[in-house]
């Protein structure tokens, strides 16, 4: 198929390859947008007094935002036919207004599973204060330009 958008193929990536870093500033508007876009109106995400009573210095980004940023980081690198199959992450610190989140990542392993081309990625999100979210992602890349994804009616395996 003709690639309208840049796409990496499984056959051209290598263990140890670094993903281009991503820097994402966080301000109050972003945290409020976070609540609005995810429907996650837990008060720690929009009410500074509540967040402080929780032991946080200010309102903070939600789990779902970290999910979105990590997946964006992966598909920015791999291209739009890259599919996240598994994402594991821990939140060891919070991200607050005034922080900049920096994403870094590298390929730990490239392997085949059945007919699929898979990569395991090690990813970190950090702020100026240090590590915020360590994560690991298993993503599927097309094997080559002819590797079409299954149609929605044929299978449930990405």
């Amino acid at each position, binding site marked *: 198929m003709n690639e309208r958008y840049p796409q990496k193929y499984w056959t051209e990536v290598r263990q140890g390859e670094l993903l281009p870093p991503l820097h994402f500033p966080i301000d109050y508007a972003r945290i409020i*947008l976070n609540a609005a876009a995810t429907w996650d109106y837990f008060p720690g995400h929009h009410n500074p007094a509540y967040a402080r009573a*929780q032991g946080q210095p200010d309102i903070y980004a939600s789990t779902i935002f970290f999910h979105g940023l990590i997946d964006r980081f992966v598909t920015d690198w791999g291209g739009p036919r890259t599919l996240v199959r598994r994402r594991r992450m821990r939140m060891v610190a919070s991200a607050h207004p005034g922080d900049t989140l920096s994403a870094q990542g590298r390929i730990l392993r490239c392997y085949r599973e059945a007919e699929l081309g898979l990569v395991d990625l090690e990813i970190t999100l950090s702020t100026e204060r240090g590590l915020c979210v360590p994560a690991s992602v298993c993503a599927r890349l097309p094997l080559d330009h002819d590797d079409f994804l299954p149609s929605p009616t044929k299978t449930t395996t990405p």
Partner: protein
Amino acid sequence: MSPAHPQTDIGTALGSYDEARQWIGRRNEPRPMDTAVDESRCKYFAALCEDGNPAYWDAEWAGEVFGAPLAPSGMLMSLMMPLPWKPGGRSAVPTMALDVPLPGRTLINVETDCELFRPLRWGERLSLCEEMVDISPEKHTRLGRGHFVTTRLLLLDAARQPVAAITNVLYRYEAAGSEA
């Protein structure tokens, strides 16, 4: 829900660890989500992350490649969020991690493990199944005293086939030196 237990303003049920332990292994019947996976929510979420992936923005291309435009994979847990209000009053959607009676009045999410069995497409209608997996003994962290609550969330499509599974760990705690 646990109507016998007092609830905080954020909906956490208060009770003892011994009561909470009885919830381990409990599983809810699938409940349908309030809305379908729709274009505006998908694009709004992509905008939050400034994610220009054409799978979410270029309907023609995504239709050719995936059969339909996709929902960002990262927004999965947001699809489980209820509407804040519906006719008849506020939504009272059961969420095990809040409903389980524990001493901790507030919470913070700690860890997720998401398995995505296939991409989600605009227009899909999903249901959610929850299972209580584990509740830790009392722990002390820099935030305060509490319990780690592990739940497993299974998202099902209209044919009741699993599309994603999430193991979620959150900390139900009493904030150190203050009342959250």
